[in-house]
């Protein structure tokens, strides 16, 4: 397996990105990226350096580009645009947030195009062959908790998508950078000296964002894992730790509502969610300290 950082130096990578493009693998997907924007390519090299290089001769799942926006505006307020297969599904972003645009754009590609999977809006992490699903709304602290678990030795599957191919009862890893927001950035920086964080991007639509690289083990280990624990986490500043079991029938409904494409999957979606709930213990978890939450979750995968 050839990794991005082994295959070329930064300068060659940036030149390739601005020309024929660069190919890299993220879980089951191959991404073909072209961008002439140096900062974007160099940050991909830095944060995805430990990912497997893609094969230009095989089919890429997503052909994406980050290009400078054209027009007179570029002289006043430079912008960048995200393209997928030559189409531009979003409004331009300010040029200095081109990397967050790339990451959000690839999220959009997965969420809208990977319909062969049941797609949960959840983080998934793994230890001892057991996948733990953290299913929650934005702002619940699931990405921060997933980051802390990864920095504690767990394998990151995703902080954003739980991908399960119906009929398998196995989650598929799609480990990408974790987009930490606002206070979470310093929380994670304090949590671990090993946190490989990219630069802060202030004034994005979600506030200040910084991207945490997936651990090297997470980046290249694409083995799937069966679910063992389903957690509905909720961060509350200053709250006492509270872990409360949830009956499986209401857990089913919460998880189905959490999925991006449950209804579109029809009976396959029903069976997939049922399989996850069947295989998992279910917890409502309220926490304010990451260490407490990690302790509770770890107890379930011993």
């Amino acid at each position, binding site marked *: 397996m050839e990794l991005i950082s082994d295959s070329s130096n930064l300068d060659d990578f940036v030149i390739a990105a601005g020309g024929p493009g660069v190919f890299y693998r993220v879980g089951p997907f191959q991404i073909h990226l072209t961008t002439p924007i140096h900062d974007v390519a160099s940050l991909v090299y830095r944060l995805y350096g430990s990912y497997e290089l893609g094969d230009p001769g095989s089919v890429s799942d997503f052909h994406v580009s980050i290009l400078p926006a054209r027009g007179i505006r570029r002289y006043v307020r430079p912008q960048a645009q995200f393209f997928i297969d030559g189409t531009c599904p979003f409004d331009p972003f300010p040029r200095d947030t081109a990397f967050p645009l790339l990451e959000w754009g690839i999220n959009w590609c997965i969420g809208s195009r990977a319909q062969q999977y049941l797609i949960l809006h959840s983080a998934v992490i793994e230890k001892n062959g057991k996948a733990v699903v953290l299913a929650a709304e934005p702002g619940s602290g699931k990405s921060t908790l997933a980051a802390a678990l990864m920095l504690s030795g767990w394998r990151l599957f995703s902080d954003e998508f739980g991908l399960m191919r119906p009929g398998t009862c196995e989650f598929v890893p799609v480990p990408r950078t974790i987009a930490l927001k606002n206070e979470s950035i310093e929380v994670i920086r304090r949590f671990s000296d090993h946190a490989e964080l990219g630069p802060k991007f202030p004034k994005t639509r979600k506030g200040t964002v910084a991207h945490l690289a997936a651990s090297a083990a997470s980046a290249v280990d694409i083995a799937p894992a069966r679910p063992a624990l389903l957690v509905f986490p909720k961060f509350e500043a200053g709250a006492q730790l509270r872990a409360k079991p949830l*009956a*499986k*029938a*209401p857990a*089913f*409904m919460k998880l*189905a509502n959490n999925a991006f494409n*449950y*209804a579109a999957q*029809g*009976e396959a979606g*029903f*069976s997939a969610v*049922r399989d996850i*709930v*069947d295989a998992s213990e279910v917890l409502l978890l309220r926490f304010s300290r990451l260490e407490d939450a990690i302790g509770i979750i770890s107890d379930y995968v011993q």
Partner: protein
Amino acid sequence: MADALSNLFEINWHCPGVARWRLAHWSDSDETVLFDESSGQTHFLAPLATAVLEVLSDQPCSGGSLLDALSSRVEPAELGALRQQLADVVRRLEAAGLVEQWN
């Protein structure tokens, strides 16, 4: 109101789509999740609704017979409340297309 309730208990009810239902039920509660293939809808069934569909899935029966079948599960003092709750549940199941009137 009393007349409406009486009428409901005189009506025969059945579950015409039962063959196209997929059920998920776990031992940790009396609730059930039902996926209806014909509509593509997923329904969360509270314990009483679960019990109603159990009875009607076996065979069609009147609302009165349904009440008799479920009465053994509650204390005598709760029968009045059960009657009202049962009427509400049957109407909701009818609105969801899971039970129908049958003659």
